[in-house]
């Protein structure tokens, strides 16, 4: 078992809180509605629920970390939009 459709379903479970909540509330109908085959649906109904929730939290923390990392790199570049805003703010404060 494993298919692009199953990977897409798992990616959504790992990254989308609403989809995960819907799945955990009703795994069978949620998996079947995604067009997965009977074996895949059965496997998902038997999923390691604690692990799924912990993994999803961990992925969310990683995504937050990536966003912060990207923002810091972006804002640190001379001429970047944020650095211009900061520079304008400093100029405004000095004029006051």
């Amino acid at each position: 078992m494993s298919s692009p459709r199953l990977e897409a379903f798992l990616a959504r479970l790992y990254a989308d809180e609403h989809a995960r909540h819907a799945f955990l509330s009703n795994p069978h109908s949620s998996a079947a509605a995604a067009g997965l085959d009977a074996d895949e649906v059965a496997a998902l109904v038997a999923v390691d629920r604690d692990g799924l929730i912990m993994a999803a939290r961990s992925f969310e923390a990683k995504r937050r970390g990536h966003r912060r990392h990207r923002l810091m790199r972006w804002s640190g570049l001379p001429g970047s939009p944020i650095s211009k805003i900061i520079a304008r703010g400093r100029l405004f404060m000095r004029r006051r």
Partner: protein
Amino acid sequence: MRRMRGQLTRDRFGLGWRAELAAGILTHLDRIDVVEIIAEDHFRAGRTGLRALRALAMQVPVLLHGVSLGLASTVAVDDARLDRMARLVEATGAEAWSEHLAFVRGGGIEIGHLAAPPRSEASAAGAVANLRRATERVGSAPLLENIATLVDPPASTLDEADWTARIVDDGDAKLLLDLHNLYANAVNFGEEPLALLRRFPLERVRAVHLSGGVWIEGPRKARRLLDDHLHDVPAEVLALLRALGAAAPQPLTVILERDGRYPPMARLLEQLDAARQALGEGRAMARP
């Protein structure tokens, strides 16, 4: 690309290159044999950035480490990502590159980190196809790294050791064995770490990752070991390195990974020394 991999005759010990550690690494190259650079941090590097990496590679052997290709997937790996890796390998003169046995996206959704796919014949076949595609596009084969997972991958029909062996055998690949990932998966899913290590295809290991983690609590008081790279290497992982040294006679490149809460460089060097000692003890155990 330098061809040091095939000529490696001794064990080497190094650190993951991070901006916060750069100065410490450069001032201790007498105790650091090799550095490993996260490839994605430099995919968009300009000529100046690439020259800097090339200059670093002139001082110390450099390995490139990918985190976003998603090789262990039934979906073909993206050529544009492979081309960026190829450019970086070529421009830096890195002696080797590596990527994880993970999927990182599906159906247009980015997971944001490394996820274990269903361990099945289909995902193993997909990983082998992606490995061949990557080898052709980049010009050299990646070392393949085992990942840690907090969730027992659903819809699996093979266990981790058998699934990994299937991929490296069918793809004629070499392994980057992350011993903390292996340890975390063992304790999280009820296996004995040493027994799990011995079921991996150890003759194919060329490089090793060491790191630390933390126990976290989930719903219903469930506890799992999270591989967070923010803590020191535990004694249990050094014991696995000792066992690996006894079981796998080939030279190994051992990399200590640290992604935050950086201790003083002296403490990281102490951990490298502990790794040297553990692997050396394993080598001594294997001698007749």
